[in-house]
């Protein structure tokens, strides 16, 4: 029997689910090997007999907490897709402001009808087997995980910084171009796509296991960033982590 997959969205832009849908040919091939029983973004049927749950989005409300716990009960394997689900991601920007103020900014006079809690990654609420960080997640990494699960192989994220892949594709270092970059402490696996396309690394894949954050902060300061600038940079995707506090 083919493994049954479910896709579930929490607080996020659903871009990671779009990455799966964007596959087209590979998606057809994947469907030879798995059944997708629940995927609101792509289909109307809703099956509850999934074994592998892919989670898109961060946990940001009380009802998110109970819903993710229910999914965890059902699924044998829970996979956090993308920066929001893996790291908390941009949602955690609100954690640096009182929740009432957030509600006020977003809902104005209607604030009283809503609730919100500090944003957190899925792993802060329930155990997670695998994470596919990135904004959006790297869909080829999604395939790699899918293949690993089908082969019964352990899936591991690279444990080296983006610099390695940035050098492999032959980029000029962002710092050499007068900019700044979180690549030296950010987990690789994206082929340094942002630097390759002329920007810098924002840290959307989270940090490597043992990042030398002090050295990175010193380097950023040397390149003209203030302590506040640096914290703001880390907070964009990694606000849930201690380094951003």
């Amino acid at each position, binding site marked *: 029997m083919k493994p049954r997959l479910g896709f579930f969205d929490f607080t996020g832009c659903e871009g990671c689910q779009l990455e799966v849908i964007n596959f087209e040919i590979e998606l057809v091939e994947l469907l030879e090997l798995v059944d997708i029983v629940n995927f609101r973004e792509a289909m109307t049927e809703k099956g509850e007999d999934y074994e592998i749950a892919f989670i898109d989005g961060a946990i940001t409300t009380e009802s998110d907490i109970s819903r993710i716990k229910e999914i965890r009960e059902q699924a044998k394997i829970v996979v956090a897709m993308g920066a929001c689900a893996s790291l908390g991601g941009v949602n955690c920007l609100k954690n640096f402001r009182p929740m009432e103020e957030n509600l006020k900014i977003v809902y104005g006079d209607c604030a009283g009808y809503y609730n919100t809690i500090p944003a957190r990654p899925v792993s802060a609420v329930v155990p997670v087997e695998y994470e596919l960080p990135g904004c959006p997640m790297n869909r080829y990494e999604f395939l790699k995980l899918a293949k690993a699960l089908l*082969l*019964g*192989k*352990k899936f591991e994220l690279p444990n080296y910084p983006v610099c390695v892949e940035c050098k492999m594709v032959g980029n000029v270092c962002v710092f050499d171009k007068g900019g700044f970059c979180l690549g030296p402490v950010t987990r690789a696996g994206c082929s340094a796509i942002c630097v390759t396309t002329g920007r810098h690394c924002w840290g959307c894949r989270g940090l490597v296991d043992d990042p030398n954050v002090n050295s990175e902060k010193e380097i950023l300061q040397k390149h003209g960033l203030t302590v506040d600038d640096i914290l703001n940079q880390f907070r964009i995707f990694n606000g849930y982590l201690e380094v951003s506090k």
Partner: protein
Amino acid sequence: MISQAIPEASIYQPRPAKLIRTEAIAEREKLFEFEFRDGGELGHKPGQFVEISLFGIGEMPNSISSSPTKNCSFELAVRNVGNVTSALHGLTEGSTVGIRGPFGNGFPIDKLKGNDILIVAGGIGLFPLRSLINYVLDKRSDFGRLMILSGSRTPQERMFVSELEKWQERRDMELLETVDRGDEKWTGNVGVVTTLFPKVDIDPQNTFAITVGPPVMYKFVVAECKKKAIADEQILLSLERRMKCGVGKCGHCQINGVYVCQEGPVFSYAEIRKLEEAI
């Protein structure tokens, strides 16, 4: 412009081998017997290793557990700790794997001949040592005394139990066993493997101590050997490193300037005494 000729074959290309037999050793350990599809032999020495491939999963180094005196087939004992080992543990007889090797230097059989042999095994260190033990037993008259000190963490984690029992009964060898932690059924020695040293009498001039075990064990075993006045040249150790390519290129197994997959994995203590990071 380069004068080096291009070789005909790739050093990374494995030979297909058929899994002909599996046998459980302990909870996480299993023995696998292979035969090359082309009918050829492995042609190894005790103490050497192979790279075993499960295509789609990967390749990993593993020591050879059978003696070369056993013809045609060869055996690998494997602890299930990673991707390749786990896939291997799931294989059924008749499956095909890829094998490269044998690699490494192996134990110096010629030097050992005519001498007494003191084997010190820790845990699955017995895997490569079993190749040597069976070799010595098959060529018994070429060697002097054969003494084995074997340590396991618990009685459940003893490897090759039925063979240990057979060895125990033999008159032409001595086997002493210990476990770190015993249980209600265990009546033997309790303590780390070095606690067995006072129980053997050796002639240091004519004895080679050969030890394989977890990295933490080596310093203590070497100290015991030295207490028994065995010369550094006659203390042999097999070192574990990440031997990814097996052919001295990829760099992962380097200890200082030494490529363990080429110059090792067997070293005398005299060779590694000054090799920082070795033990």
